[in-house]
């Protein structure tokens, strides 16, 4: 039957609540239960509090609130450490139990998407080793990186659908004395942020109502295995993923739309490291400049490693070509932490970001120079050997950033 334009416009004119029974894809929860019943996998279940939210086709996804195993991101920890420390700082503010493991490797997905110098078995074994390591601790994996999240969802599908792949991965894991573990949900940290957003709002210390922000939804969050991303009928009418945008709206930020929201950031995996002409061009021409021309935001916010790096670092060179740039870039976790009084440098670590963030902090009424001077004092103590480094004891306490 032909769908008319009128029918499409009518459908888009009100929030969409989708019927899970009409979903066009396999329900991964059921597939995993079947494999567990056959003794093929160990299914790790969420222990303790969780919240359920609808995903793209109306199924429910459980998001654990605590007892989480923080699967860190290469890009966060290597190049944007305030991203990772903000996620943990938020947990600490609510005394939520978490585990920051060292028995974790990269998912190696960035390398795989950049070079293909691996294969399906190798990638599935890396994921399964990390999940087995989380299972051994009793904590449930919370994935920091959008690429790890997407990559693991895709590998989960491959493991579910291909017995030969499961057998081969199990053979490798046997050599380490580990079982083949798959968690009942693969959860991205931005989904946890989404689940916690009203609790953040209750503890908000910085008024953000004067800020206009754009959102860049991360490709590997909602395009790879698309049905497993959170969609909320109250956000964009359920037509786009709700994470990030819902948080910003809860914090009182004006979220402005722009025409190229679906475009990727230009990261490219290999390109960002060795062929950045593509990365810079795409990030500036299709994302930053479009945002600037259409809504001129104070900030753009995203929820993945590569997007923060690409959108932030690509802006400098474009100034030589008189392009319209100059939008600071943060993750949702950093914005939430800042709203709750996290120190801009000890926790949010603004100094690792290169596009000028000072006007944004000034608009919020934050005297960044005062906190920068304080941080410089920390660095002097470290340089002189009087202090080995900054600890959570230095960073935990929220501060009244605005007068």
């Amino acid at each position, binding site marked *: 039957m032909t769908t008319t334009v009128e029918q499409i416009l009518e459908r888009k004119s009100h929030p969409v609540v989708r019927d899970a029974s009409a979903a066009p894809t396999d329900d991964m929860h059921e597939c995993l239960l079947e494999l567990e019943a056959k003794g093929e996998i160990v299914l790790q279940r969420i222990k303790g509090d969780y919240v359920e939210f609808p995903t793209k086709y109306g199924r429910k996804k459980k998001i654990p609130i605590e007892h989480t195993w923080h699967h860190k991101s290469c890009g966060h920890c290597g190049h944007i450490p305030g991203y990772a*420390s903000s996620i943990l700082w938020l947990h600490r503010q609510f005394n939520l139990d978490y585990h920051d493991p060292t028995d974790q490797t*990269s998912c190696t997905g960035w390398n795989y998407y950049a070079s293909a*110098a691996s294969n399906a078995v190798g990638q599935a074994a*890396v994921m399964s*080793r990390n999940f087995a390591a989380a299972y051994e601790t009793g904590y449930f994996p919370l994935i920091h990186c959008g690429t790890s999240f997407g990559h693991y969802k895709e590998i989960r599908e491959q493991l579910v659908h291909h017995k030969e792949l499961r057998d081969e991965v199990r053979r490798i894991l046997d050599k380490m004395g580990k079982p083949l573990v798959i968690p009942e949900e693969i959860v991205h940290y931005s989904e946890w942020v989404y689940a916690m957003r009203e609790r953040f709002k209750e503890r908000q210390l910085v008024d953000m109502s004067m800020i206009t922000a754009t959102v860049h939804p991360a490709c590997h969050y909602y395009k790879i295995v698309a049905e497993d991303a959170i969609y909320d009928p109250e956000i964009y009418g359920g037509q786009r993923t709700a994470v990030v945008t819902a948080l910003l709206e809860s914090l009182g930020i004006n979220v402005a739309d722009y025409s190229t929201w679906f475009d990727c950031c230009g990261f490219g995996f290999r390109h960002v490291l060795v062929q950045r002409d*593509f990365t810079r061009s795409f990030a500036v021409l299709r994302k930053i400049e479009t945002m600037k021309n259409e809504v001129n935001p104070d900030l753009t916010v995203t929820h993945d490693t590569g997007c923060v790096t690409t959108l932030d670092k*690509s802006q400098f060179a474009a100034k030589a070509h008189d392009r319209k740039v100059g939008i600071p870039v943060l993750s949702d976790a950093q914005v939430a932490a800042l709203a709750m009084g996290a120190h801009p440098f000890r926790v949010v670590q603004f100094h690792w970001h290169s596009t000028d963030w000072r006007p944004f902090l000034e608009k919020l009424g934050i005297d960044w120079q005062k906190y920068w001077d304080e941080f410089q004092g920390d660095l002097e103590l470290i*340089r002189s050997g009087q202090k080995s*480094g900054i600890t959570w004891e230095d960073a935990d306490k929220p501060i009244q950033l605005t007068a």
Partner: protein
Amino acid sequence: MPTTQENWNPGKAANRHPEATYEEKERLFLEVKNDVRYHDFLYGCYECGICVSACPSARFYDFSPRVIAQAMAREDVERIYDILTEDIWNCAQCFSCVRCPRQNNPGGLITILREVSLKNGLQESKDALQGYSRVIYKVMLKGNQVSPDMLQPDFFPDWGPWVQNFSQNMHVWRKAIPMDSIRGLTDVAWRVERKTLLELYTIWFESGNMDIIKELDESLYDLLVEVMQEELEDA
């Protein structure tokens, strides 16, 4: 030669790479087709172009995910070889193309094509990955893709004076991070236990990953094998 309006042939493609025999091209295609994921990634093609409209690489290169899905569906061996040698490294692997109404995954097909290209030592792929070997070395040996000490002004001049500033302050800035797992580290992103790294090395050997590295870069392979085997033997 890029595909243009003038040389576009909607039938099977002409032989643009006579340096390889048809049999060799067909063997490579069959290797792609026999990958366990191939049938999950290709269902047919309406030629609607939705994948192209969403594709960032199509905006900047002579590149089309639609052509790739089409060539695969038609099993056009000559054109698939063109794609293997000319196109695959332009893909940004963002997977915007998976909004395909036929549920195709052109990005996934490209992943398989890249793997086959590397496994068979195609020179075009070695050229595309020139300069990237140090990253492979890092992730396979240290268990992290990137590290702070990679941020050097020589490698990232386009990131502006920030890189110089960072580079000069890297050691003290890294100590000024509250997370125990990353504080003070400059050659890795976070601290990975030795036991964990040994398990990672086991995966690389057991999964056939090292064979791919050997085809890509023999000196990188020798270096990795020497370090990994020594560590595994010590353990």
